[in-house]
């Protein structure tokens, strides 16, 4: 085609010429504007949580707990005599933002430690970056377990840790037949594996399971399948607000009188507030922290929280996990006498422990997971829980078994039960 066929495009583009010059100018100005070099000698604490978007149910409290802990440490004289300074980014519940901000927070803000993430995928996105830059990283949420990396420390409970006590208790309480309702991704499938594992260990049996997409709102097929399988209790692992609808529909179909219902994550996002008293009463949950537990350090923690924020929304376990994480790190820095990563990691691997709101927690040197209490609680009619039993210092047995970062410091894996 000859050029004269294109006068139209030419005209359009000849206007672009001026435009592009303008863009270049704007770009140059903005590049200069953001190129500000910051230098100071404060200790920098990095924080990336989902403050907006679908996951902010957890992210906001995680961030609040971080600020509360940092203020608490600063009020008591800081770390190594220096005040802590928080550098915070909002990951907006988007995974790509974690990658982006982790690099920014390390390259630009030059943080000394990172507290970040809720979902396993966010942790997996950040893990290679903190590893490359050798920055201690704390992941504070309950999860399916198995992460193993020199720089990564986990203060939430792993699935096997919670399941081991919960399944044993439930089989004794209700009987051996178990039905599993779980979200259809890693957390659900791996948790289901542990249910099966501990069911066999304690003489139980999984009689059926349903894995649900996160967008399901209508649970009648699941409820139907549960009735066909006739279990003694249901292990329900609802994720996100939609899946709390399952508990309503489960109760409305009259199944709560016929069987027990237990969960390892019910309550971790304040689901008990959303669920109506009729549906929530009697649901059994197991986690490393509940606001209602009776521990010496819980009352002062709650008081501080109430003073800073409010207790209108109950404190979730992830908040306690972050609180513990910050204090354990601060303790390790004091022990090491420096914020140098290698020294801090070595201190963290020295069997360091901390008296948190959920009792004494101890960092396992090999697996970088916490040995901590697991509480079994039962939902009451006031959107809260009553503690039924406390299992003291439960070890993260699976992680301790597969992950030994003292012996194999180069391990960087996410183990699944298949690796056993």
């Amino acid at each position: 085609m000859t050029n004269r066929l294109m006068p139209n495009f030419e005209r359009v583009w000849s206007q672009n010429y001026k435009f592009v010059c303008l863009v270049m100018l704007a770009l140059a100005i903005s590049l200069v504007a953001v190129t500000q070099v910051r230098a100071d000698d404060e200790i920098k604490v990095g924080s990336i949580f989902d403050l907006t978007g679908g996951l902010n149910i957890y992210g906001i409290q995680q961030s609040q707990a971080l600020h509360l802990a940092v203020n608490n440490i600063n009020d008591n004289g800081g770390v190594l005599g220096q005040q802590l300074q928080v550098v915070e980014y909002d990951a907006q519940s988007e995974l790509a933002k974690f990658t982006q901000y982790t690099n920014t927070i390390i390259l630009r803000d030059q943080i000394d430690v990172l507290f970040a993430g809720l979902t396993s995928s966010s942790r997996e996105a950040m893990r290679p970056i903190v590893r490359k830059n050798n920055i201690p990283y704390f992941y504070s949420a309950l999860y399916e377990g198995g992460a193993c990396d020199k720089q990564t420390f986990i203060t939430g409970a792993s699935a096997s840790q919670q399941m081991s006590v919960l399944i044993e208790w439930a089989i004794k309480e209700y009987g051996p037949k178990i039905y599993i309702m779980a979200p259809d991704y890693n957390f659900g499938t791996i948790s289901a594996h542990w249910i099966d594992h501990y069911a066999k260990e304690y003489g139980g049996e999984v009689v059926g399971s349903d894995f649900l997409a996160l967008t399901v709102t209508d649970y009648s097929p699941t409820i139907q399948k549960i009735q066909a399988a006739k279990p003694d209790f249901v292990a329900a692992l609802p994720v996100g607000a939609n899946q709390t609808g399952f508990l309503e529909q489960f109760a409305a179909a009259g199944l709560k009188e016929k069987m027990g219902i237990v969960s390892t994550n019910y309550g971790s996002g304040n689901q008990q507030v959303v669920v109506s008293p009729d549906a929530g009463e009697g649901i059994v949950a197991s986690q490393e922290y509940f606001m209602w537990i009776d521990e010496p350090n819980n009352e002062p923690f709650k008081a501080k929280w109430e003073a800073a924020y409010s207790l209108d929304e109950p404190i979730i376990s992830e908040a306690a996990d972050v609180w513990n994480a910050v204090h354990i790190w601060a303790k390790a820095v004091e022990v090491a006498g420096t914020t140098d990563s290698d020294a801090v990691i070595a201190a963290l691997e020295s069997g360091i422990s901390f008296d948190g709101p959920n009792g004494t927690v101890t960092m396992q040197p090999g697996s970088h997971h916490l040995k901590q209490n697991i509480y079994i609680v039962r939902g009451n009619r006031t959107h809260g829980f009553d503690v039924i039993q406390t299992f003291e210092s439960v070890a993260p047995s699976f992680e301790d078994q597969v992950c030994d970062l003292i012996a194999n410091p180069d391990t960087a894996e996410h183990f699944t039960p298949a690796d056993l």
Partner: protein
Amino acid sequence: MELDFLATLLLSSLSSAAILLIATVGLAVMFGLMGVINLAHGEFIMFGAYATLFATQIGIPYPLAIIFATIVTAIFGGIVELLIIRRLYGRIFDTLLATWGLSLVLYQSAVLIFGTVTPGIGLPISNIQIGDYSLSVYLLFLILVAVVLIGSLYWLLTKTSYGITARAAIQDRETASAVGVESARINTMTFALGSGLAGFAGAILLPAIPATPNMGFAFVIKAFLAVVAAGPVTLTGTVAVGSTLGMVGNITASFWTSVVGDIVFFLLTITILRIFPLGISGRWRMKL
């Protein structure tokens, strides 16, 4: 396979279809009578749910709260039409994107106003027993609601002067405006009607699905697919496609898992669109 299982399967799949229809008709009305796909439909449902919640919290009994929520959402929809949708007539994809923007704004506003968790009102604990199985009465009640809803909508669109003018306007815009139909006013009313239906859906489904800022997302995807697969004859088409898709999804989920149910739902939609490029009712003679 026992008889009681089959009976409950039938009833529960009917209730699935009913939930889908209740959540979809508002969208179908907007699409059918205005040609607008409202991506904020899910957030309108959420709006209705929170309005109901608010009403019950200040002491209004639940049945009245449903009416309150429907009206409030309808008014809100009317305002949205006047401020945004009106300026985008005939630009269907721009409308799509603007309403998506609206859905983000509504979502985040809900988070700001209500927080991320609010107490639900719960399903009435009453159920019927069929052999070994028990079913929630409320879910069965929803089947009745869906039937009545579709019936009254049919009446509204065929027997009232609004309905007749609205349908006339869609069938022949030029003639309609020539004989003095104020299409702008009709459109505002249609959008308000669609929004009101969304609000109603949020209100009536609230016991089964607690109000959360992102509750809309779970509904809308299937609602969009049902409406588009239904094609231009929205009411009849949506009832046909919506109930079929809802029931098939439920039945596959009963035999396999809900993920398989979802995938079958999606694949069925694709198949329908492959066979009927303009939706299943693309060549139907009836107009409603």
